[in-house]
């Protein structure tokens, strides 16, 4: 993990949280701790925190009809070539990744016909997946309807 370690293997930290918004911040803290120890720069750590936050938020918001008994799994793989790979897994409804990528932002706040009347239901920006792709060096979305979604992302120092 650091220069004092001679390990040339992938080391893994696993985290498993209830599928609830309360715990997304805990994941960010743990991941930022790992990234700090790997000696990522402050800017890189901020990028990683945002990307992880987006993926966990999506799992919390969209994966399950009833999230109350559901969980989100987070795997952090520390590669010896100073690459941090993070995998966020839910076993929820899944979604059509390609169709979503195409239609994104159509119902966004920023479109003129977005309905802003209900202050309790804020339309999303449709930026989550875009942020993950732009902030990380690698990003992959694998989703199967009824089986769940796996978001794999990685950044190298």
């Amino acid at each position, binding site marked *: 993990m650091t220069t004092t370690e001679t390990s040339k293997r992938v080391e893994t930290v696993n985290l498993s949280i209830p599928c609830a*918004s*309360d715990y*997304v*911040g*805990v994941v*960010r*803290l743990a991941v930022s701790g790992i990234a700090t120890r790997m000696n990522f720069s*402050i*800017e890189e750590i*901020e990028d990683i*925190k*945002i990307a992880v*936050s*987006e993926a966990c*938020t999506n799992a*919390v*918001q969209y994966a399950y009809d009833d999230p109350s008994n559901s969980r989100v799994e987070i795997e952090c793989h520390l590669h010896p070539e100073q690459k941090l790979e993070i995998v966020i897994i839910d076993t929820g409804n899944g979604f059509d990744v390609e169709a979503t990528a195409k239609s994104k932002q159509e119902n966004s*706040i*920023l479109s003129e016909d*977005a309905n*802003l009347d209900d*202050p309790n239901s*804020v*339309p*999303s*920006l449709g*930026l*989550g997946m875009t*942020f993950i792709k*732009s902030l990380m060096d690698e990003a992959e979305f694998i989703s199967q309807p009824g089986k769940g979604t796996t978001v794999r992302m990685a950044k190298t120092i």
Partner: protein
Amino acid sequence: MSLDFKIHITTNEIIPIVHVNGEIDVYTSNELNQSIANVGEQNPNIILDLTNVHFIDSTGLGVIAFNAEKCRRAGSALCVICDKPQIRKVFDASGLSGKSVLVVEEETEAISAIQTRGGSNDNN
């Protein structure tokens, strides 16, 4: 602790300022949305002070964009004070900074930006 989240409201001249402390994410953004909505009931223009915010993601941006767009449609303005490069960067990456959301670095800038763009509260 970085998971502490607090909001308090002050009023500078006639524009209320919503000061946020902590991280704006899926967990805390509801509270932020509620605070802005409450303030907005009394005042068309709003200043959002993110000086003490050290994290924001697209959920937080969504809440800010939602309220900024509401202000814009009503002919008023929401202005964000933000001096941290990493927070600023998120606004810029979203493409929001240019549109309904004004992002400035200081309170005085925020006041004059609102007075130019949103019109003063005196008009109501």
